[in-house]
């Protein structure tokens, strides 16, 4: 029976984000929160592994208290437990303390055979946190994976490299990051959601992890945003196809037998 973790993040739905025309900053106030899309693929990869090998899936997120619904959503899809890592000490973290805090949480929960992460988040796109967790924990890792199988005592991870598939054999325990659209995630079901909402989630705070406040949250974040520039929209020169181009298109279509 495998002990599986999935690390997820609640992000604003990118469809709802607009750019303020004056300040040029992202306006996410109208955006609905969703589970970071590649994380949903990571969860599905974990569920597929569990379906085959058996095991228990713990979904972990670090975020504000309102992120509980993201965990419940994942439990509705089939995860067994939800852990919300939340504390004002953790707030304002860049990817370094985030990886450190999540790795510490995994350790606090007794470690895992395998930890799944999404390849990156849609709201910051660093791709740091999965590998960061692996390094802090000293786990093996494979990134940009689309399929994971278990051949005791190894995990077999498939990664898409352009034009070919690379298959890696990695030891246990391991961290894998899963690519967006790696699989077709199953939907939550009413029955599982009811169970999830009844069961609820567990909160982990720094009184549990006992991490040095200097190493976590904003204080523990070495990244400083020095400047931000908005890239101007590329100038589009609209090409207006004329009759000649249209004739060409038609002749190609006729040539290929698409139209007669």
């Amino acid at each position, binding site marked *: 029976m495998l002990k599986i973790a999935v690390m997820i993040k609640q992000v604003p739905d990118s469809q709802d984000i607009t750019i303020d025309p004056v300040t040029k900053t992202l306006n996410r106030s*109208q955006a*609905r929160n969703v589970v970071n899309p590649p994380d949903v693929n990571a969860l599905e990869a974990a569920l597929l592994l569990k379906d085959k090998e058996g095991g228990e899936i713990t979904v972990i997120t670090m975020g504000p208290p309102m992120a509980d*619904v993201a965990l419940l*959503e994942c439990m*509705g899809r089939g995860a067994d437990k939800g852990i919300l890592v939340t504390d004002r000490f953790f707030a304002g973290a860049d990817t370094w303390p985030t990886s450190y805090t999540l790795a510490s949480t995994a350790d606090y929960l007794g470690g895992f055979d395998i930890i799944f992460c999404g390849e990156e988040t849609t709201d910051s796109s660093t791709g740091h946190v999965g590998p960061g967790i692996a390094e802090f924990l000293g786990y093996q890792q494979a990134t940009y994976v689309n399929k994971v199988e278990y051949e005791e005592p190894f995990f077999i991870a498939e990664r898409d490299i352009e034009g070919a598939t690379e298959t890696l054999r990695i030891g246990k325990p391991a961290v894998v990051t899963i690519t967006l659209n790696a699989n077709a995630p199953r*939907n*939550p*079901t*009413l*029955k599982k*959601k*009811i169970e999830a*909402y*009844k069961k609820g989630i567990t909160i982990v705070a720094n009184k549990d992890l006992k991490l040095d406040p200097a190493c976590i949250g904003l204080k523990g974040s070495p990244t400083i945003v020095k400047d931000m520039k908005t890239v101007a929209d590329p100038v589009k020169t609209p090409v207006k196809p004329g009759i000649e181009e249209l004739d060409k298109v038609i002749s190609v279509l006729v040539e290929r037998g698409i139209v007669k």
Partner: protein
Amino acid sequence: MANFKENIKRINSSESISGRMPDYDAIVVGAGNAGSAAAITMASKGLNVLLVDRADPPGAKNLSGGVLWGNDLAEILPKWQTEAPLERFIDNKKIGFLTEKSSIVIDFKTEFFRDNKIAHSVLRAKFDPWMAKKAKEAGALVIPGITVESLAIEDRTVVGIKESGDTITANVVLLAEGVNPRLSIEAGLRKPLQDRELSVGVKEVIKLSAQKIEDRFNLTKESGMASEYIVGSLGNLNIGAFFYTNKESISLGIVSPMEELRRNGVTHTYDLIEKFKSHPSIAPLIEGGTTIEYGAHLIPEGGIDSVPQLYGNGYMLLGDAAGLAFSNGLVLQGMNYAIVSGIKAGEAVAEAKARNDFTAKSLAVYEQKLGSTYALKDLKTFKDIRKVTNNPKMYTVYPQLLEGILLETLWERGQPKKKTRDVIGEAASKLSVGKVKALTDLYGIYRRM
């Protein structure tokens, strides 16, 4: 009910679930105003309630084009005026006609509305999740993001709901699934709505700063304006329009009977809303605004005749799903009707539970309760209103007649003035409106409205 019998999907006796304890006292399908009101009512009385909604957060997909009247809401959520995400309280109602070049509007601004602040503009995508949250706080289990697939029916009784191969059971299923009640129709609990029973509303939310809104509409920081128009400038179509202020946006839209659109055949609703927006007296009000949201919704406007059987063995129909919306040409209301139906359905379930009887006979108390409120009474009182609101002259000739009279009486042309009687007579003959016909129509409005 014949249809209902035909549609019963019998479950093999081996799978029979009627023998065991149901999972819930009640399952509510749909976290709109009706569903949440029912869930709050039942959960507050200690019942074990499951509220399921397709959207996440619950109710976030809901849409309306009107003002919320909170009389009934106050019954279950007394602090709604301070706690709910409301936009502006309405102390200014306008009703009027639009012709191609004019607007003729009654502008009613009153301190009476300011005193009790009972009417508010709301954005449902915020308001409905709040109501669902209140249901949760009252003790209901609220599950968002799930679309119920079908009803579980056994021995002519609704015994639960089905989703992903699972059946969740309850003594009563409250169907608050909206104007297009798929589950109820598929189970034969009600007939599909016909064109003549429906209107289609098309709406836009236009972002505008609070300052601009307050300046343009002569409002204070919290007060708001709501208006309804008969639009006589859109060819021969019977179109109504609405326009109201939110905190930092305007909601506006058009409402057209489905039959009208079908009859016309060529006009698209988006053209109609564009024409309304570009009307000379509407365009300046939204100038500089950006459309941030648009949507469309069906409105059950069939009146009392299209209200189906409201209950049966193990089920009840609520809100829009039960056709409980009211329109008389002057007002178009649905949210308060939904809330009152939710409260009465919830009370009925609690009483049925005390009797431990969830048959149609026991649930009939729902209709009795609803019948004693304005909800069913209004629909009965105004049962002939469509004869007025469907009269094409209301949208074409009469607005023009009014316009003609006002042009003649309120405008100085440097010509000898005429008596009002002659002005009306001339305007009417210009539009070839027979005096007798006009008087008959006027009497019809007087009698039915």
